């Protein structure tokens, strides 16, 4: 008998018992769906974070206090990061020295603090960033409405601000904020512009919630000399590693090596992606357990099916089916259940990913589909062997005699 007929018989058997087949497939449907969906969420997060870093500007080097990376390559411990912030020794003089290094287009300081910010009766507690006008270009943060503050605004320590798009919406809802006055740390600030939407959150910085004020103004009103971060823009990508060496050398004159970190901004991305990659695989692995459970479900139902259909097997053998054909029929049946279940699982995961994408980044990858589908098909074959063998070894007489 040819394989086409065997497949046809197996499909017929599956459709003859529709509800049982569907229930059998349920385990695989959930397993495949869970693997694809969880991996989609992990991948979505990676794509999202990569996008965030891209939006931070190209060819940038970050300088922060303390040791960001541990010697093993991952992030440093939480304790070391906290102590770095409290013992921050980066100062504006460092920014000025770094900007003199050749091959560096711009070096700007960033100071970060929290403050109440209010418009009329609406008050929000938000992060305030004190920085230079060059931030607009270096960090690729354009003013969507109005304009970014100028050098003269900074030099004069003027009370002007650029609001993140979410913050502007929170404070002003539908009113145009340009030219209005908000109060930051109790002082009146004129809104010069609203920054274009950057996105963010999910544990990372939410740029759209920030209020940007001139660096000098920040120092004046918060009386804080510590620079939270220095952002350096290199002239070209090729020179970045040399720039890092030079910056380290410059800072090393005044600070100990564990008091500052210099890294290409995308380096953080590499570490985050590494962590997320492991997380995604871990999530996929946990979901894969449900796939195996689904496979065991298929085996159970197939074993019940062999017992239920003993008479049918006997009849088929009496009419000329060889043990090999019976084995193949049941093996194809379990594999098809698994493959159909896998296909439904993939479709379901796609639909759910579309829904989830409205609230959380989820990207379904070909790799996860191939992995989940491949594993489910293999499970169908592996877990189908025992029932199929049992069916093929039945004696036709015993089988025909069964009730």
């Amino acid at each position, binding site marked *: 008998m040819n394989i086409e007929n065997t497949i046809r018989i197996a499909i017929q058997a599956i459709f003859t018992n529709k509800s049982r087949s569907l229930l059998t497939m349920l385990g695989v449907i959930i397993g495949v769906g869970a693997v694809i969906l969880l991996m989609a969420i992990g991948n979505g997060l990676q794509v999202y974070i990569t996008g965030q870093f891209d939006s931070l500007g190209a060819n940038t080097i970050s300088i922060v206090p303390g040791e960001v990376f541990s010697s093993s390559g991952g992030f440093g411990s939480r304790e070391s990061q906290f102590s770095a912030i409290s013992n921050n020794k980066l100062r504006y003089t460092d920014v000025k020295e770094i900007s003199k290094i050749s091959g560096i287009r711009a070096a700007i300081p960033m100071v970060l603090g929290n403050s109440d910010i209010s418009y009329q009766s609406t008050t929000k507690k938000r992060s305030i960033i004190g920085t230079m006008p060059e931030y607009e270009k270096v960090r690729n943060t354009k003013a969507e409405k109005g304009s970014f503050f100028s050098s003269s605004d900074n030099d004069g320590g003027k009370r002007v601000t650029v609001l993140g798009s979410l913050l502007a919406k929170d404070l002003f809802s539908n009113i145009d904020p340009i030219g209005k006055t908000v109060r930051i740390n109790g002082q009146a600030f004129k809104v010069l512009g609203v920054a274009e939407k950057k996105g963010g959150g999910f544990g990372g910085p939410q740029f759209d919630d920030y209020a940007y004020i001139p660096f000098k103004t920040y120092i004046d009103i918060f009386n804080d000399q510590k620079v939270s971060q220095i952002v350096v823009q290199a002239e070209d990508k090729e020179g970045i590693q040399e720039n890092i060496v030079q910056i380290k050398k410059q800072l090393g004159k005044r600070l100990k090596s564990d008091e500052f970190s210099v890294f290409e901004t995308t380096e953080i991305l590499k570490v985050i992606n590494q962590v997320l990659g492991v997380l995604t695989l871990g999530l996929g692995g946990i979901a894969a357990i449900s796939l195996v459970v689904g496979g065991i479900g298929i085996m159970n139902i197939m074993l019940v099916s062999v017992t239920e259909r003993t008479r049918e097997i006997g*009849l088929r053998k009496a009419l*000329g089916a060889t043990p090999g054909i019976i084995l193949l029929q049941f093996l194809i049946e379990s594999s098809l259940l698994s493959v159909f279940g896998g296909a439904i699982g993939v479709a379901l995961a796609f639909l759910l990913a579309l829904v989830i994408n409205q609230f959380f980044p989820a990207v379904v990858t070909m790799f996860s589909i191939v992995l989940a589908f491949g594993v489910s098909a293999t499970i169908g074959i592996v877990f189908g062997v025992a029932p199929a063998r049992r069916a093929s070894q039945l004696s036709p*007489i015993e089988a025909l005699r069964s009730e």
Partner: protein
Amino acid sequence: MLLVLENISKHYTVGDTIIRALDQVSISVDEGEYVAVMGHSGSGKSTLLQIASFLDKPTTGSILLRGKKVENYSENEMAGLRNREIGFVFQQFNLLPKTSAIENVALPLVYANVPAQERTARAEDMLREVGLGDRLKNTRAQLSGGQQQRVAIARALINNPSIVFADEPTGNLDSKSGEEIMDMLDVLHKKGKTIILVTHEADIAHHAKRRIVMRDGHIISDSKDRKKKV
């Protein structure tokens, strides 16, 4: 000679006891013969049918089909023999559930690698021949007992077998349907088909020209031998 069984024994071991279901049984069947094997429950008639129809192998003895020894055939070869040479009519009809009459009849052709179109055409013809031309798509649940047995006869004949084995073919039927089925077997015999019928009912056995009576795994009488003696 179409089928020869020589000194066939079939022994089963249950615990310490050996059960001799068949003991040194010999029988030959000619082409076109209509044979009834009779006997009470446990007489060995069903075991004889199973061995003669290649569903089972004897413990000892030899089987010749058209002079060719087949008792040492592999399981696959036995399956091939059953498919080509044997047609089965069972007491329980044994139709596949939720499957149309036409698909049930075509089943042996599936295992004979007959193309789908030809299978359907031949099964349709066969169902018309047994008077079920208007029931082609009906499933087991939509057919009466008599109709189910007719579908089973159509299935037994679809591959044009050398021998039709009927195991208590009227056992699950009312007397009218039983008579109809026996009439069909009579017609088949008249057309030259070899039929081996297993029954415990004397009036059913009388449809056959030759009657073999079994008891305790032995043949105690064979009408063919008596005729020879006379």
